[in-house]
């Protein structure tokens, strides 16, 4: 089994009488880019804050690197929760320098990280003059101080323009691949997480409705051809042997053919030429968005 970097068991958090996180158990493995998806108000930020010790849980436990969450293992975690916490009147370098006292890091490492997040030219500019995207990247730079093994990022691309989003995405992928850092990223922007995540957790009303790997999700969301015909067994044999399409599932008179949908006309022609009557042919597809929306269930507006 892969090494678990972060695990929660039965995590519960209430604000007054309102249960914001309910019996939540999630597992993040080493090297994962874990996309934490849920609509606004689902409890994503609260979960992250509890994991980082900013909020106190009402029940359950948090394990970091195989041990119960404590001050020692929190030092191996970098984070960016909501808007980045920065000193606006100071330069990017001064901000990094201050947090380097707490997290560790030399001047050379500070410059290297600022270069990594694309803020080399803004090193000595005051943070209050930064755009939202630059502040977000500086927030990630602060989180990267002290070589963390896990980065917890809450909505890192929120409010960014497409270029800013791509920049943050590239940083995440680069840090994950080059430094082997595990990521736990929350977002309500499915399209963004789709591009980088290796695993997903779906949260709604404080409940984790599903954890799924990117491969399994891709399988569930791939397109298929649904075909209803007179002789399904014979039709499946013809498609498999003569058209080299191995993955076919039969249910009564319907075949579920996992293949490129561009081949649907070719399949139809072939079966008709072999004397099999095709009564219905439908292209089925479930988008990631459809899948997540289905898992999240109805959302109260």
């Amino acid at each position, binding site marked *: 089994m892969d090494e678990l970097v972060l695990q929660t068991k039965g995590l519960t958090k209430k604000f007054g009488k309102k249960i914001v996180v309910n019996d939540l158990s999630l597992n993040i493995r080493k090297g994962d880019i874990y996309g934490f998806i849920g609509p606004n108000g689902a409890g994503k930020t609260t979960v992250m804050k509890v994991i*980082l010790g900013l909020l106190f849980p009402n029940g359950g436990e948090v394990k970091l690197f195989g041990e119960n969450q404590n001050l020692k293992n929190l030092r191996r975690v970098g984070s960016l929760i909501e808007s980045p916490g920065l000193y606006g009147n100071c330069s990017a370098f001064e901000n990094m320098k201050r947090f380097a006292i707490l997290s560790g890091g030399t001047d050379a490492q500070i410059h290297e990280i600022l270069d990594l997040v694309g803020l080399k030219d803004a090193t000595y500019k005051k943070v209050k003059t930064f755009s939202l995207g630059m502040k977000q990247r500086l927030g990630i730079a602060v989180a990267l101080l002290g070589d963390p093994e896990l980065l917890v990022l809450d909505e890192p691309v929120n409010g960014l323009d497409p270029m800013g989003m791509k920049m943050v995405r590239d940083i995440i992928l680069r840090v994950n691949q080059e430094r082997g850092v595990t990521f736990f990223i929350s977002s309500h922007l499915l399209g963004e997480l789709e591009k980088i995540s290796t695993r997903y957790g779906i949260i709604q009303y404080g409940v984790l409705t599903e954890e799924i790997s990117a491969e399994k999700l891709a399988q569930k969301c791939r397109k298929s051809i649904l075909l209803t015909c007179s002789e399904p067994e014979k039709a499946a044999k013809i498609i498999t042997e003569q058209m080299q399409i191995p993955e076919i599932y039969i249910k009564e008179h319907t075949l579920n053919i996992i293949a490129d949908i561009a081949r649907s006309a070719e399949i139809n022609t072939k079966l008709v030429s072999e004397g099999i009557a095709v009564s219905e042919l439908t292209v089925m597809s479930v988008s990631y968005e459809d899948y997540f929306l289905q898992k999240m269930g109805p959302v109260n507006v």
Partner: protein
Amino acid sequence: MYEKGWGRVMKNMFRFQLRRLLRKPSFYVCFGLCLAFTVLVILAQKATFDTMGDLREWLSPDDLQTQFMQTFSPQLLSLNIFGSTMLPLLLAVFSGIYICEDRVRGTIKNIYARGYSRTSVFLSKFIVSTCIACGVYLLTVLIAYLSGMVICATSSYRAAMLTVDGYWLLVLGRMAAVLALNAFYFMLSELIGTTGFSIAANIFAPGFISTIVLAIIGIAALVMQDNTFSSNAMTVYEYWVYNLATSGFEVDMDWWDYIGHLVASVVYFAGFGILGWLIVKKKQVKN
């Protein structure tokens, strides 16, 4: 990895707090103003005295000594400067800015989430804040004392070189009162958490509490028609309320009074410190 023990944690926290403090323009503005005001008050007093030329001719030397020249004793100047400068006001303003900054800017998330306990954050802030209050008070006293020396060194004021019995004890006592007041500001700022409200509360709360307590004592005394109660209540008020709002340490106070005020200041310092710690310990980072 950045492994740390408790000593290392505290060392990092102090380095962090000091760097934050020393690169804060408001620190220099607040306490620069305080020190400038000290000099200004003394110069204003000297100017007043200088304009009394005519008065000097027809006042008896004793009257002159009593009414004006005492002001220019270095020791008296340095003892009285607490009441006549803006030190409490500027401490109130600076506490609001410095204590609340991490919550207002959201940087407290970066500290807690990096494995620094609430206790270490509280201790580093409280100690740094106490040292600032202590340092600025002593600097104010020193400036007042030196200014008095300079003024009294001129021939016309030479006669006013008065000494005060127990001078250093009074300086110490007043410092205890300043630290108690500073601990109160610290606690209130931690409780409120936003800069503007904290500053307002720091400035008005001591006077407000003092007035309310005095009003309650007055009403109770009227209702009960009991002189003993009234007298006891006023004694308690003097030590436990008036002492916080202003410094109760006066020249020529007796020993029992001195000890009473000192105990009240120390208890306040410790009490507000513990309250501040409990607030920091229990406070979650919701925003």
